[in-house]
């Protein structure tokens, strides 16, 4: 099987999904694979994300042309017409060059046929195996046949062959025969044994007698080869290494020549390890140690057989590859130094990892969201978090910060408070609280000040068992006092590690990994791996949070998309045509109802005749048909034929798992030329399963009647059947009522797209974004207010990582200015903008007073920021006071002689991380370290004192903090309550401050005082007004959603990136710029943008123009057109939430698919009393 895809995305966590969506939305076909049997990565296990402390993943779904993808909870799964998903699949090799890679994949069988499995769970009920559940992070058990994630769509059971005991009970229990252990193929699986060991041959033939494998015993390699050459359909060759070495090697080579890919297993004895290793390299599959014993050999052989006949190898031709294999949580039990016991992890039930805590707090977790201690079930009321477990620890091979744990712990502390109704006391023990995101500090402050979370800067080391199963934690506080506290639980904020499969994956993809085992990327090309055409997305290249992962994924998608376009030539000028549907708006509704009869439960539990009869008399229903197995292609084919004959203009399907059928409805729609919005699938399966004996909306007749029949148990009697039939009729009637009222008129006309982008701001982010768009063949106008391109980044002289930012920026400016697709307007500003996604008209005025009118389909705002001006602490009065950036420039220019200095002091977080600039600027810690290391390089003995609150060296920049410490810089923590005081004597600063470690005041007389003043955004209020977007309290752009839509605005078609969006390093700016560029390409790539099927419309004759809908609309999709005095809806901005329809008192605004008439008819149908059992027929 060989398929062609635009891109292959490895890893279907959020990073992979984001990258896949970004590419799929631009029309590229994407293969999305994951080694796990489920989608969603680690986030399937995490229910709560700050700052909302719930989920919001669905906000990642496409906003335009949204009917191309699923419209349901993204944690449950995703469907997109351009994405093919392959689960349980790993990349095994990547050959070729960008534009035309040959990717080989190995797809491990789950042994369950997804087209048959109805997730009834009978298999798991009979499975005798119990192993720790991965989904619940080991808190709880699962069976060997299990649901990997209980809430996925589609959700099919999988067999974990490694833990299977081969009792075949699941096979027998499965009502739909979905489980396939290939019993029938055993007789064709010939096993050849080449061994001179007679005992072994005898044993094998005895042991395998009952397994039904044809066994061929040969005493030499020659014989085995002869057998193979004779055309025997051999499945496995067991090759004994006790045969002469030359013979074994020859046999192996020959066997593989005759049967490429043949499984050859080496039987090794003591002393043969080396020979075995050599033959493995030649292509042998694995080794098996002699002497063999039956208890191990038979299951092994059996499972090997099942793997060999069930697993698949896939080959794809792909233009580019995105690696988004995510990360794994550090397991304290894995610690090579054996410190797990010190933490009591694994030995005390109250010591949990943060992942385990997340599962405890999850309503799908082992305690269903009840915060109770595993083991004794004690409610958790005193909980401690211990930061940096497995991070920032050189002894645990982690000279990096995991970046996510601080915020996770704060969130978990708040979660604990919430879940316990405010009763839980939460304490976080930390070294530095790394709240290094735009709004993170405020989140922490709220946790501390409003919610009462306690933050203790200490690192407890001794965790001891306390009384009553509690934990005793001892620590020295900053004053040197020994403290002991009792806690119900200790949560270890475990750091991240590269995925366990990293080595294999890196080898298969041909990429390099860094010292920490993550994918190696360069600081200033963060989305690239060491191999051209292979990109890193998500947290694959550096530990990062959701927001960072999505930015990284967006950037990777941009890289891949650009690569594909570059190597595959200009884009296809004839994009796939949107399906054309027949206009049925003038027809009388004709509903075809199809009921799936594939499930045995349905037949057994429902009175099908009665159901048919009831459905046939429903208004509008022209025909009710049975479809066998609607879940299969054949089923749909028969349905299509039925529909072609009946010519309905509405189709209602009663089946199971409605979400699964969404893609099929599209196909059926295309075949019938009927809009899928006029079709629906109802889950009748769940109702058919219920063993209950009640009817809806009336009185349970059956209870009374059953009572009259002694011995009749509920659910078996006819009344149970009647109740189920009632429930099912009611569900179908409701759906039919909704379909009947569905608006068949065609959607508003699609908006033609102006294929040009406008980028406002010519700094690093703006230029990068412009390049990202221009390189993909679209015109860009880049507007810069200043007379030169470059912005803030032009002031940088060096980076921590050793790059040359000056050169980088000069190159970038040159590339931008030379790019034929980019038109640069310097000394210019936007004065007017109108329009919507796809069609903006903007007027730009240049310094000379020339006005340019631009037509563009999308806009990127990258207005940047600057270092905060310092007017306190003697800056601009005393020459000895500098900002970090000024120091960097002076050091680079040589105007400051480091060797002449006697001591230097730095103050971090100067006037930031407190109101009114209550955010971490992200760049100052790195800036300070950069300067420290430069000073120390030039004058190693120079004393440097750094006053800091928390050092925010997230990710791999942590190692520079270590380096700065090693170089001898002294770091002194201060709090906002006791900040260092600066006075000047003889023009020299005198700093007095409290050293919290010593509990003593210190006084310094440095030559130079360097202030980390942080960054602030350029004043963007005017631009924000012009484009109808929002700003945060700090003047940064307010994105649509800080985590899930990090570069979007609520107003679609306008995007932001760089420093204007929030404090950012060069790397951050590059990532957000590339991600934003890809979002723009997504719009420009279309010739027309059409809206979704669920979209709001105004009935102008009824409208009183009160404007309630305008303020109710969260997307700004509505406005009052003053010229026409009408409320107008921008159908591209409208996401179909229906806020407007509830706000409108007289239904002057309506939502397609949810007209009042429809909803009220559904309510009527829901409340219709079904005939009772006694009265049926």
């Amino acid at each position, binding site marked *: 099987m060989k398929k062609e895809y635009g891109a292959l995305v490895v890893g279907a966590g959020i990073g992979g999904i984001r990258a896949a969506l970004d590419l799929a939305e631009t029309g590229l076909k994407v293969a999305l694979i994951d080694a796990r049997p489920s989608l969603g990565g680690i986030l399937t296990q995490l229910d709560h994300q700050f700052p909302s402390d719930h989920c919001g993943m669905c906000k990642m779904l496409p906003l335009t042309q949204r009917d191309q993808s699923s419209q349901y909870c993204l944690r449950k799964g995703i469907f997109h017409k351009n994405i093919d998903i392959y689960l349980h699949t790993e990349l095994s090799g990547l050959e070729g060059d960008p534009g035309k890679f040959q990717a080989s994949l190995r797809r491990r069988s789950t042994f369950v046929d997804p087209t048959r499995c109805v997730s009834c769970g009978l298999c798991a009920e009979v499975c005798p195996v119990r192993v720790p559940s991965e989904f619940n992070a080991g808190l709880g058990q699962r069976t060997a046949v299990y649901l990997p994630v209980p809430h996925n769509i589609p959700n099919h059971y999988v067999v974990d062959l490694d833990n299977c005991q081969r009792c075949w009970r699941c096979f027998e229990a499965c009502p739909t025969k979905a489980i396939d252990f290939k019993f029938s193929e055993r007789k064709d699986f010939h096993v050849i044994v080449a061994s001179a060991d007679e005992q072994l041959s005898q044993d094998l033939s005895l042991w395998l007698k009952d397994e039904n494998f044809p066994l061929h015993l040969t005493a030499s390699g020659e014989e085995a080869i002869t057998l193979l050459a004779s055309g025997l359909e051999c499945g496995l060759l067991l090759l004994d290494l006790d045969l002469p070495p030359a013979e074994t090697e020859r046999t192996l080579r020959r066997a593989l020549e005759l049967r490429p890919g043949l499984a050859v297993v080496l039987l090794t004895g003591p002393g043969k390890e080396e020979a075995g290793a050599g033959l493995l390299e030649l292509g042998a599959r694995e080794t098996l140690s002699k002497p063999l014993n039956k208890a191990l050999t038979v299951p092994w052989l059996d499972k090997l057989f099942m793997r060999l006949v069930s697993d698949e190898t896939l080959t794809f031709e792909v233009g580019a590859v995105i690696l988004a294999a995510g990360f794994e949580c550090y397991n304290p039990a894995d610690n090579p130094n054996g410190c797990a016991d010190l933490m009591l992890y694994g030995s005390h039930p109250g010591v949990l990892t943060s992942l385990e805590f997340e599962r405890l707090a999850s309503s799908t977790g082992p305690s269903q969201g009840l915060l109770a201690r595993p083991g004794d079930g004690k409610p958790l009321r005193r909980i401690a978090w211990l930061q940096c477990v497995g991070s920032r620890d050189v002894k645990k091979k982690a000279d990096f910060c995991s970046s996510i744990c601080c915020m996770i712990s704060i969130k978990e502390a708040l979660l604990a408070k919430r879940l316990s109704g405010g009763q839980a006391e939460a304490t976080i023990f930390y070294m530095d609280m790394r709240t290094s995101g735009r709004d993170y500090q405020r989140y922490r402050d709220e946790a501390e000040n409003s919610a009462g979370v306690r933050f203790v800067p200490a690192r407890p*080391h001794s965790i001891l068992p306390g009384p009553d199963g509690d934990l005793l934690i001892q620590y020295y506080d900053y004053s040197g006092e020994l403290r002991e506290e009792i806690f119900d639980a200790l949560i270890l904020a475990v750091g991240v590690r590269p995925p366990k499969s990293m080595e294999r994956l890196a080898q298969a993809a041909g990429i390099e990994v860094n010292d920490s085992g993550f994918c190696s990327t360069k600081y200033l090309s963060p989305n690239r791996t060491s191999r051209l055409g292979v990109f890193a997305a998500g947290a694959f290249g550096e530990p990062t949070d959701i927001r960072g992962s999505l930015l990284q994924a967006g950037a990777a998608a941009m890289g891949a998309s650009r690569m594909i376009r570059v190597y595959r030539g200009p884009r296809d000028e004839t994009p796939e045509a949107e399906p054309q549907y027949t206009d049925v708006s003038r027809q009388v509704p004709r509903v075809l109802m199809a009921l799936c009869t594939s499930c045995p439960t349905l037949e057994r539990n429902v009175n099908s005749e009665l159901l048919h009869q009831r459905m046939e008399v429903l208004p509008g229903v022209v025909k009710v048909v049975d479809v066998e197995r609607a879940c299969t292609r054949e089923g749909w084919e028969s349905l299509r034929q039925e529909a072609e004959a009946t010519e309905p203009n509405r189709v209602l399907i009663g089946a199971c798992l409605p979400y699964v059928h969404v893609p099929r409805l599209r196909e059926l729609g295309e075949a019938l030329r009927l809009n899928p919005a006029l079709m629906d699938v109802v889950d009748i399966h769940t109702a058919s399963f219920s063993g209950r004996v009640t009817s809806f909306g009336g009185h349970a007749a059956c209870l009374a009647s059953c009572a009259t029949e002694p011995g009749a148990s509920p659910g078996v009697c006819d009344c149970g059947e009647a109740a189920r039939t009632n429930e099912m009729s009611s569900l179908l009637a409701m759906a039919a009522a909704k379909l009947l009222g569905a608006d068949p008129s065609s959607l508003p006309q699609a908006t033609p797209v102006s294929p040009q982008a406008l980028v406002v701001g010519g700094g690093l982010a703006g230029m990068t974004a412009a390049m990202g768009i221009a390189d993909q063949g679209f015109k860009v106008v880049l507007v810069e207010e200043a007379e030169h391109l470059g912005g803030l980044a032009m002031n940088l002289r060096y980076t921590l990582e050793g790059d040359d930012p000056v050169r980088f920026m000069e190159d970038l400016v040159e590339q931008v200015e030379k790019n034929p697709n980019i038109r640069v307007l310097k000394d210019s500003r936007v004065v007017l903008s109108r329009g919507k996604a796809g069609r903006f008209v903007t007027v730009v005025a240049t310094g000379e007073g020339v006005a340019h009118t631009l037509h563009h389909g999308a806009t990127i705002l990258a207005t940047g920021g600057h270092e905060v001006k310092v007017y306190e602490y003697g800056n601009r009065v005393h020459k000895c006071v500098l900002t970090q950036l000024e120091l960097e420039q002076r050091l680079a220019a040589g105007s400051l002689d480091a060797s002449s200095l006697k001591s230097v002091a730095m103050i971090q977080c100067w006037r930031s991380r407190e109101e009114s600039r209550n955010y971490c600027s992200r760049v100052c810690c790195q800036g300070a370290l950069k300067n420290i290391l430069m000073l120390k390089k030039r004058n190693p003995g120079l004393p440097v004192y750094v006053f800091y609150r928390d050092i925010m060296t997230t990710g791999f920049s942590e190692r520079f903090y270590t380096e700065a410490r090693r170089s001898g810089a002294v770091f002194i923590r201060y709090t906002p309550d006791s900040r260092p005081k600066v006075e000047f004597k003889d023009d020299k600063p005198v700093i007095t401050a409290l050293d919290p470690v010593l509990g003593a005041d210190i006084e310094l007389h440095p030559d130079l005082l360097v202030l980390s003043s942080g960054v602030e955004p350029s004043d963007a209020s005017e631009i924000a007004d012009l484009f109808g977007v929002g700003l945060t309290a700090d003047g940064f752009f307010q994105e649509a959603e800080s985590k899930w839509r990090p570069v979007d605005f609520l107003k679609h078609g306008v995007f932001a990136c760089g420093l204007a969006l929030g404090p950012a390093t060069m790397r951050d700016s590059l990532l957000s710029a590339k991600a934003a560029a890809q979002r723009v390409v997504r719009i420009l790539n279309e010739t027309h943008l059409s809206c979704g099927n669920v979209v709001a419309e105004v009935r102008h004759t009824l409208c009183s123009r009160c404007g309630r809908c305008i303020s109710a609309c969260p997307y700004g999709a509505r406005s009052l057109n003053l010229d026409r005095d009408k409320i107008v809806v921008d159908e591209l901005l409208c996401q179909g939430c229906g806020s407007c329809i509830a706000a409108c008192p007289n239904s002057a605004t309506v939502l397609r698919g949810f007209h009042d008439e429809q909803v009220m008819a559904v309510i009527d149908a829901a409340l219709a009393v079904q005939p009772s059992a006694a009265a049926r027929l």
Partner: protein
Amino acid sequence: MKKNTHPLISFTPETHQHAVDGGLAAIQGMVRACMQCGTCTASCPNAFAMDLAPRQMWRLLLFGLQQEVLESRTFWLCSSCYSCTLRCPRGLPLTAAMAALKRLAGAEGDHANRKKALFYQEFMRNVEQNGRVQEMGFMCHYFLAMRDPLLPLEYTPLGLKLLGKGKLHLGGSAQRGRLGPLFAKVRSMEGAS
């Protein structure tokens, strides 16, 4: 210094320079990467008896306050259990630094420090020879080394008390000399680190 008395320590670059020139520089180098997490203090079984918690001592050391460091009895109380070294997330050779401080104090310190250094030296020599402390022999050697005729009198009440409770061993040991190789190994390891 456990109570927050906030004494004013005044730094000038000059005192720091002096410290760097002195013997302290090498020890500073051992603990420079310290980030004051306090794991060492938390792990130290003797921290309760120390006048400066280990974390505080490293701090003084990094500030270059040689006198304050050497006046402390903290490093003398280090029993070389290596807990701190094992647990330090920065992988610093803390026990070695303690030992280095002992040596520095012995070499450069004042009378009080010499006294402690000698006590420590004699204690360890005694242990190395006997496999455990032979209190009598140890004290005799210590008194001799101190060359202070009045010193034994200071210890007489304590000695009698211990003797009364049977806590003073007067001599003779089957363990004699067995710890030699162990001490040699530690010496070589500390030399290497």
